[in-house]
């Protein structure tokens, strides 16, 4: 990529027999909010620690602004990190924590105080200067960790699941603040998370990782709407994944599946051939239920329903396919259904994705 700010080139990292990062190449642009998303143990934190200089890659190179930093020790790198447990120095107060990285700049007392105040204001912690490390909540510690890293004006800020320890409400608040902060300071953020919602909300681009490899990297909307594999589709959001076989290819691809019979699908981005085993993927919100049989409606039985406030989830069982089920989310379906009730399933063939197995 021409405008690559961070270049990760064929980086691998093994611990003994375990390969944590498996030949990853990535380019991250300047000022981008880039997320590494994956289940725990997928290598995302190891990759972040390689960027920060806390692990040396077994093979491969890391460049920032064209400079090879692969073997540069952590304390000389133009990166700063917000640790998962925040790593607030327990023997120092907030002011001393935030000012920790300023020692080498040999600032006067006034300059330092001014910088610290500005950094604390940025994370909305004015007046907390003298607070001790153990007198703060998780959210406040997180803000101190952010201020302490940002005061260094790093080229890249690395964040290791910084919101993981916060409760849901605070987490959602911090997500918005983090995004605003990133746009305000214009620093490139590399953000590690296992929370797909968080990754989709915050990022300019997301890399979905599993078992040390990158499965897909794209803007959040593309990841959500066009997952490139069954693995990604399964990991991102709720998705009905149906096994099928390609019957014929013409204007549309005709796929037969146990649950829906023959379905004509518009998507053939993965170039399938007749006879291929494929996965039909469709989001719950792209399926709908009807009380009356309509053209193309499939008779189904409601297996379970769950009210979620803004939407209601139904698990349905198409007739004559055993116990296989599909999930449907419906916002405007007024006819409340109970398990055992009959209904008709409607869908649009353009909402289906076809993924090669």
């Amino acid at each position, binding site marked *: 990529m021409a405008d690559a700010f961070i270049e990760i080139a064929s980086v691998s990292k093994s611990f003994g027999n375990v390969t944590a990062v498996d030949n990853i190449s990535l380019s991250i642009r300047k000022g981008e909010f880039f997320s590494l998303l994956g289940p725990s143990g997928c290598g995302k934190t190891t990759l972040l620690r390689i960027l*920060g*200089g*806390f692990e040396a890659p077994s093979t491969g190179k890391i460049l920032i602004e064209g400079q090879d930093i692969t073997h540069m*020790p*952590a*304390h*000389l790198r133009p*990166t*700063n*990190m917000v*640790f*998962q*447990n925040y*790593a607030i*120095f*327990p*023997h*120092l*107060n907030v002011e*001393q924590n935030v000012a*920790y*990285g300023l*020692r*080498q700049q040999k600032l006067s007392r006034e300059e330092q105080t001014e910088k610290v105040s500005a950094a604390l204001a940025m994370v909305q912690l004015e007046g907390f200067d003298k607070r*001790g*490390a*153990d007198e703060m909540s998780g959210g406040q510690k997180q803000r101190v960790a952010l201020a*302490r*890293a940002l005061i*260094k004006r790093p080229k890249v800020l690395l964040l290791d699941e910084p919101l993981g320890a916060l409760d849901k409400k605070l987490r959602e608040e911090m997500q918005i603040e983090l995004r605003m902060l990133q746009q305000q300071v214009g620093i490139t953020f590399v953000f590690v998370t296992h929370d797909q919602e968080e990754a989709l909300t915050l990022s300019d681009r997301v890399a979905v990782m599993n078992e040390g490899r990158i499965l897909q990297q794209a803007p959040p909307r593309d990841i959500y709407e066009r997952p490139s594999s069954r693995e990604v589709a399964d990991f991102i959001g709720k998705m009905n994944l149906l096994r099928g076989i390609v019957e014929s290819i013409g204007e549309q691809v005709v796929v037969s599946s146990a649950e829906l019979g023959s379905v004509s699908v518009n998507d053939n981005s993965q170039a399938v051939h007749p006879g291929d085993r494929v996965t039909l993927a469709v989001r719950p919100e792209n399926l709908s239920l009807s009380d009356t049989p309509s053209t193309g409606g499939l008779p189904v039985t409601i297996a379970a329903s769950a009210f979620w406030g803004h939407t209601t989830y139904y698990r349905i069982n198409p007739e004559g396919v055993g116990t296989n089920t599909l999930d449907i989310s419906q916002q405007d379906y007024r006819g409340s259904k109970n398990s055992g009730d009959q209904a008709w399933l409607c869908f649009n063939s353009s909402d289906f994705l076809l993924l090669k197995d």
Partner: protein
Amino acid sequence: MNRNMKLASRILGTYAVIYVAYLYLPVLFLPLFSFNDSIYISFPLRGWTLKWYQVMLANEALHRALMNSLKVGITTALISTVLGILGARAVTRYRLPGQKPVVGVIMLPLVVPEIILAMALLILILRLGGSLGLVSIAAGHILICVPFAMVVLMSRFEGFDRSLEEASHDLGENSWWTFWRVTFPNVLPGIVASLLLTFTISFDEFIMAFFLGSTNPTLPVFMWNQLRFPKLLPGVLALGAYILIASVFIVLLAEWFRRRNASDTQTGDMIIG
């Protein structure tokens, strides 16, 4: 509370009182008899006197022995604590090949009888043509004190989050500054504990000091020498009382320091400035 529990708690209470009395009464007899105006230990006291304290304060040999013990004790405390810091840090921070056997060997002096160590060192030093004296005593004391320092410091190092050191590196400090600004203030209570413990062990250690000292006795050896002559016994009792007071003072000082450190979380960076 039913009757059985009342009985049980009464028995336990009595046991506790007897236990504490057994621990401390003999120690309290030491200062008591040191005020006795007689060279023999007997009840009732013949009369009250402070002369044994004056005798001891004026005893030149005692001064020398005390100075010897302080020299050996302080040297031992400093060197074994520094070695303990290095060892504990290495063991808790890095995955080293053969780590467990190495730690086992370091800890060995804890279980090897001291008299064996003392004899082995004596033979070794004489064979190598070394001379006996305070240096050889300190060497022996360091050998037995390093495991204690390691144990105290390892628990402190383990109890302190490794990511703090990483955060310091991340914020631009090299290993040396990270040690001074983060590691040292966080393990400081352990360092103080180690210094006090190793000093105390060295200060009252007898076997090594007896085997490896020449004509230059440390305080315990000096006391043992005195005990062989009945007429010197009361003086030894007075000396014992002095040491008792000093010990209580040191324990109180250590406790005060520990509490101050616990409440004042900023001590660390204030030392660095």
